[in-house]
């Protein structure tokens, strides 16, 4: 059996330790969890800073300017610098130019694309399957519920879209027929929320299984059994912390 590289063994110990520190929250909020939590924020922010520096400053600004002479890129750099005037109270108003540019551009880009992709395209996808019922050989109707493209499902989707939209339309009083439609909308919404919840739970379970798989793998002798030793250490530390907490009652003043 070949020995594992040193960095993998150290990595296994670090990963196991951090995983157990986070899991210690299941017992209760404690200093070990807080330590790992703050380390997580620090490492994540550091990672984002490095990636942004590499992607934006190096690859989008420095390299194109130095290697291709794209001087025009100094304009967005200047706009970006204007944002930093927020830290100079007397010049803070200049940051408005940067925000005005970003917000204006974002709003302009959003209007046609949102109308096209998220409104017209969605309406089209809701209506078009129904039109396919009337073909060259007369009217056909497929009843297969398991096929999302069947005509029965197309009608159910139309019913769902219309009733949910109506439920959120408050310009008409929800009474009589309107009330029935709104109630149907609520029913669809509840099913969707339930499905969304179930899906999220299973996604989290999948992550949990991933972490437990790692812990099982790292309990192997080739890594030095970090899962076993660090579990004992974490439980011992929690025990000591709990004891110290009992000995020092909280200050009520």
């Amino acid at each position, binding site marked *: 059996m070949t020995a594992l590289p040193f960095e993998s063994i150290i990595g296994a110990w670090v990963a196991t330790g951090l995983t157990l520190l986070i899991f210690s929250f299941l017992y209760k909020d404690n200093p070990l969890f807080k330590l790992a939590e703050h380390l997580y924020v*620090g490492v994540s922010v550091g990672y984002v800073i490095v990636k942004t520096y590499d992607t934006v400053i190096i690859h989008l600004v420095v390299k194109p300017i130095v290697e291709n002479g794209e001087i025009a890129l100094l304009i967005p750099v200047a706009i970006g610098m204007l944002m930093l005037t927020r830290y100079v109270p007397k010049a803070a108003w200049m940051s408005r130019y940067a925000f005005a*540019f970003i917000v204006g551009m974002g709003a302009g880009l959003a209007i046609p694309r949102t109308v096209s992709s998220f409104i017209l395209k969605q309406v089209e996808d809701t209506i078009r399957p129904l039109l396919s019922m009337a073909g060259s050989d007369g009217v056909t109707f497929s009843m297969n519920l398991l096929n999302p493209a069947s005509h029965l499902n197309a009608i159910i989707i139309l019913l769902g879209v219309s009733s949910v939209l109506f439920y959120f339309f408050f310009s008409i009083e929800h009474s009589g027929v309107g009330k029935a439609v709104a109630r149907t909308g609520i029913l669809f919404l509840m099913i969707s929320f339930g499905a969304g919840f179930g899906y999220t739970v299973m996604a989290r379970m999948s*992550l949990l299984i991933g972490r437990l798989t790692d812990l099982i793998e790292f309990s192997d002798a080739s890594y030095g059994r970090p899962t076993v030793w660090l579990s004992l250490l974490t439980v011992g530390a929690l025990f000591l912390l709990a004891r110290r907490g009992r000995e020092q009652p909280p200050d009520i003043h």
Partner: protein
Amino acid sequence: MIFLRRQLPLLITLVTGLLFAAQYYVPHPASEQMLTSATKWLQIVGGFALILGVTSLFHQHAVKIRRQEAGWGYSLVLYVGMLGTIAVGLWTNGKESVEGTMTAFGWVYNYMMVPLQGTMFAILAFFIASAAYRSFRAKSREAAVLLVAAVIVMMGRVPLGEYLIPLSGDVSSWILNVLNSSVRRAILIGVSLGAVALSFKIIFGVERSYLGGGKE
């Protein structure tokens, strides 16, 4: 001065907004080129926006450490984690691997960030389950519908569930692909209508909160 501080930013928003809204309807290479450049510009300006956020985080924790407020040690851990990752990242030019070999930055990502992130989200499974126990009791017809949909989808996503209730896989797919997608579609249409309305309000200067407060 009012023009420079208040009206010029609104004018910039109006002009850029109308220009980039119109760009979509001009199928000319120059128009496409403008969009490509603008996207790059947005990314560059967005990078500077990150500086604003990170500086705020730096400042908040620096104050905590300087004043030695309660929990300042955790702020120190945050600083060490952040500065350490930045140092390692800059040392390896932001690359996680070079020619298939993991760099120190890749090590930080694989053995620190991934386990921390994965476990942080994984423990939510326990809290979601306990929240479900408290809120999912079928007190009304709507809550019962929500509960049944959630249980079917959960059963349908795992082999054990399909083994216990053979139909759960198909019903789960039907709920997700038909009922759920119809609701998502309706919500998407509603949200999009709101987004378009807000964009128009921003471009024509009705909505100005993005400019912030302050004098004039």
